[in-house]
């Protein structure tokens, strides 16, 4: 059903603002430059609800829906570069026995798994516990589905991949770098989301893999041209607008602004 595309670009991330801060240029180009030659489809899979940053308070539905609104603004911004504004199509699809929110905007499809995130960057998360087998299962924060094992979660992601990459010749996976030396100080959520993605794509044949460094890039030299800083800044501002218009605090912070002039990733082909 998606055979009109020449390539499908998967972005598998833990947080709603992760691709904007660390993978923003690739996403913008993959979505916005969807011209006849490239003709790409983009699939963004958000594993956690991103509700961790709630000042130690219990899970805050308004916070994660605000973050999702911000991420959606960013998708629209990229996708509307080549045409007029469109309409989102939202469905709850059953995939590998799990009810998942699937949202589509033009050539972009988003899946929101809404798993619990870690309370803060350094703490372990439920995804890691599931990977390590130290918990018997994890439930999404809306309590709509339960994953009984790491294998169950991997198979769910693999099922999404099978749905979305059907008959598309080129497959590209973008996710956080799992090398903790290259990508030191990364959130545990993000690293284990990347491991999940790599396990899910293990059976995919020819593909390209882009592994992004994340929080550690502030210790690396600035490497972006002005126009690329502009693009990342645009994405952060629209993410931020989603937060503030929904009553949440701004994330236009010095830490996040530091990420805007840097972009580091390595490419692996298999």
């Amino acid at each position, binding site marked *: 059903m998606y055979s009109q595309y020449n390539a499908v670009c998967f972005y598998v991330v833990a947080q709603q603002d992760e691709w904007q801060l660390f993978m923003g240029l690739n996403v913008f180009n993959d979505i*916005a430059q969807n011209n006849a030659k490239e003709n790409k489809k983009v699939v963004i899979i958000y594993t956690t609800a991103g509700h961790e940053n709630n000042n130690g308070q219990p899970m805050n539905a308004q916070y994660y829906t605000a973050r999702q609104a911000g991420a959606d*603004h960013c998708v629209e*911004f990229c996708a509307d570069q080549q045409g007029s504004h469109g309409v989102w199509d939202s469905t709850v699809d059953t995939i590998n026995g799990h009810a998942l929110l699937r949202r589509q905007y033009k050539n972009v499809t988003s899946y929101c798994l809404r798993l619990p995130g870690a309370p803060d960057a350094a703490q372990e998360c439920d995804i890691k516990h599931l990977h390590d087998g130290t918990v018997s299962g994890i439930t999404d924060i809306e309590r709509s589905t339960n994953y009984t094992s790491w294998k169950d979660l991997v198979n769910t992601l693999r099922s999404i991949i099978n749905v979305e990459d059907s008959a598309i010749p080129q497959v590209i996976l973008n996710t956080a770098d799992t090398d903790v030396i290259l990508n030191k100080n990364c959130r545990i959520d993000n690293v284990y989301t990347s491991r999940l993605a790599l396990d899910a794509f293990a059976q995919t044949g020819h593909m390209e893999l882009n592994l992004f460094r994340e929080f550690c890039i502030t210790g690396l030299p600035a490497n972006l041209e002005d126009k690329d800083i*502009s693009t990342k800044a*645009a994405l952060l*501002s629209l993410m931020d607008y989603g937060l*503030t218009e929904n009553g949440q605090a701004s994330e236009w912070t010095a830490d996040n602004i530091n990420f805007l002039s840097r972009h580091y990733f390595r490419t692996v082909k298999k």
Partner: protein
Amino acid sequence: MRLPGKLLLSILISVLSVPVSFAQYTSVAYYMVAHPDDWQLFMGVNAFNDIANGANSNNSKVVLIYTTAGEANCNGGPVNEQYYLARQTGANRSVQFCADINGKNEPWSPSVVTIKGLSYHNILRYKYKNTVSYFLRLPDGCLEATHTTLTKFAHGKMPTLYAVDSSTAYFGYEDLVKTVEKIIQEEGKGADDITINCPEWDWTLNPSDHPDHIQTGLLATRIASKMPCVNLNLFEGYYSSNNPPNLAPEDIAKESALLAQVSYGCTHYGYSPEWDPTHSGGSHINWTNRNYFRTIITCDSNVLQNDPGPVAFQDSTTTLNKYTVNVFPNPAHDIINITYEIEDSGMVTMAVNDYYGRSYGLLLNETKEKGKHTFSYNAAQLRPGNYSLYVKMPQNIQLVKFVKE
């Protein structure tokens, strides 16, 4: 945030037309611009800092005055209300983005206030935190200025200027000057630190800019010159993209964030984004790494001593004098020959703009002797389309359209 045009406007006038009341601030920064995206593109860093920092204090506010609706109705015909509402939405989003950096979202307060210039005017006013925005919605003159324009009005060529939404009419240019002056006075009551930011009106410093920008800069400067000790920041417009980039990454980020909000406002109404480098209208991100302005402190100088006087802006409805600029061939493939005659020796400046006002640089900026001259320009690098040649001579300024095939 969206105001659905004339209908709601008329309702608000009857319901909310109240005397303007203003809180006390010790510091007020005014941004007086022609179009809803001007301050973001050319004054973005200053505006971002003023709004964001002011929102965090109780004594500093920002007043934005948009002179035209920015409807870009360049070919005449019915005004596209949706388009100027889209741009207005983008402008308000930019304001909200800055104001919310240091705090939580709050409701907007839209109203229509009645301001007395030489006559009474109903003007759309939005308040958000420490910001106030006035949308005068005068006609957008476009680069060719073939229809009603602020410039013509300023030069007495039109007795009356109507807001595009028919909310008010200005009977003579002084009526407009007094009205804006009244807004500035009322919003600045109690403040001892006043800054006015506006477009640079000196053509030699800001060549080939949009006539509405220039006229808005002149209007702001005229008002500032009557006020005691105002910091007047005069910003280059379109031409600044020819200057070297001069912004640090964090400031590029601020301007880009503002442009993104403008662009998002436009696309949500179904209009083209102002962002994409491949966009047919040209990308506005060419301006996001540059801010150029000069500052005049009005109590130290006579700011209008170098006022060029009435800008002899020529258009198709004006009879050109004998010192006409000719361009041939037109349409042209590559070499364009430009002939002109000047009545006195002096500086001659030439620049090329595309339809959207994007400057393609200075072709000429030299002192020339009195008499006839010819200049050849290689237009091979221009994409096919319509362009304007801007020629500033000692005796006048002319814009000549040409077509690149």
